[in-house]
């Protein structure tokens, strides 16, 4: 889909800087916090620039309403949901097709890292709420889920983090925001657990050559490595803010 770009909007300047002043490989300012809610067994807040996501983990537990549980491992239930006020136009609170897909994609990004074999016949609930959406909400959500799982003491193989790489005016850039997503040529959200070398979420919307794709994936993994480091600091100190520069 081609949406007409507003006049005067320059996505990459002649000096190679992005519309918000970042270099291609820069993250936006990142903020992470754990233990933000009292009721949840684990919780976290993650901000990538204006994108703001909270996560809560309940479990391992028995589900409220009986349903068939897995005999050999915990059942993961993941809900990615956007607050009605999180978007430019009010979003209906009923789950959209997009939210259904992203709930699945995020669940499948977490399944490989949760040691669910340790809790058969239980449920681990991971609830993700996007409070403000400015691009990269699904990858911020994976990061928040990773923190909340750790905060809840759910045993995991490794921390996982996410970031979206985009192609904007022909340039590959890390952690794209909504403007870059809307007027750019490609958006590639990636989540990975760098400590075990596993890519657990990979989507591409847009056109990339084989070489661009490999480069983009490389940039994503580098950024995720930094994000997971910030996760570790957050779990030690409860709270972290970082400029995002590498």
């Amino acid at each position, binding site marked *: 889909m081609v949406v007409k770009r507003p006049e005067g909007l320059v996505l990459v300047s002649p000096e190679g800087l992005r519309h918000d002043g970042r270099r291609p490989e820069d993250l936006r300012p990142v903020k992470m916090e754990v233990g933000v*809610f009292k009721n949840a067994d684990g919780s976290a807040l993650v901000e990538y620039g204006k994108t703001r996501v909270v996560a809560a983990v309940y479990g391992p537990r028995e589900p409220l309403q009986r349903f068939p549980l897995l005999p050999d491992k915990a059942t993961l239930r993941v809900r990615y949901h956007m607050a*009605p*006020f999180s978007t430019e136009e009010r979003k209906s609170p009923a789950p959209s097709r997009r939210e259904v897909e992203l709930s699945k994609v995020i669940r499948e990004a977490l399944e490989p890292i949760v040691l669910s074999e340790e809790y058969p016949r239980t449920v681990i609930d991971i609830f993700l709420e996007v409070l403000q959406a400015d691009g990269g909400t699904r990858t911020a959500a994976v990061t928040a889920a990773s923190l909340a799982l750790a905060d809840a003491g759910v045993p995991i193989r490794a921390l996982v983090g996410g970031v979206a790489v985009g192609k904007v005016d022909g340039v590959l850039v890390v952690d794209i925001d909504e403007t870059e997503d809307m007027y750019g040529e490609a958006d590639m959200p990636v989540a990975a657990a760098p400590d075990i070398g596993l890519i657990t979420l990979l989507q591409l919307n847009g056109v990339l050559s084989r070489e661009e794709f490999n480069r983009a994936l490389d940039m994503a993994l580098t950024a995720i490595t930094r994000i997971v480091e910030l996760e570790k600091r957050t779990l030690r100190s409860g709270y972290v803010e970082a400029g995002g520069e590498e």
Partner: protein
Amino acid sequence: MSISPYKPPITPLIVKESYLNMLRKGVRPDNRDLKTPRLIEIKTGVVEKAEGSALVKLGDTQVMAGVKIDVGSPFKDTPDQGVLMVHAEFVPLASPLFEPGPPDENAIELARVVDRSLREVNAVDLQSLVIRRGEKVWTVWVDLYVLDHNGNLYDASMLAAMAALLDSRLPDYEELETGEIVVKKGVKGDPLKINTRVVTVTVAKIGDYLVVDPSLEEEAISDVRLVIAFDEKGRIVGMQKTGAGGLSFDEVDRAVEVAREASVVYFKALEESLGRAGG
């Protein structure tokens, strides 16, 4: 269909007894007396993309309110008024007992009580929301988002709604020659006109005692609550008995009395949050 709730967080009788013993001495587990609300924290402007927003912490309860303002059509019988919509979501994040799905009767009741309390005093000046009479008006969506449920969602939600409305600015817009209204994204215009502020005060009956701003534990051993809305002049602008119990005439009278006192505390917290935002 409304069904007697299956799993109210059950508190053994003995807990209730020992709690009543405390009340007899005029104190509560968190050291409050019976008439005092928990610590209130109000932060506005927490969602930059919304026209107005607020996060309210009332003790450990957290409610966020976001206000979105769009161009819409007026209702047929009120062509000279904008539209106000209040919606509440109890997202499963907020409590081990909440489940995903459309709003249940509790969320609907909450939203409707907040809505009526605002509407009956024209707290949001609906007449000021007309763009073109009978055709185009502003629709003001107040979305209440319960993030952590630790008791008394009513008072926290009403504070959040009110603070978010006070934080709101109408979008700037242009009227094309075709008559179409084009909203200028990200450009904020005039503040939303608020005629009066409103708060609700919830009083729970536990045994024969009336306590203001019940915590989750207190709600568990109370079977009836009275939610009373006040405007700044101390007039009663709404009321809702909620919960499976009843009240005597005298209890209602006493509840109104203690609630009016507590309303002053809420109004003060609101006022202070505005000071901070302006500072």
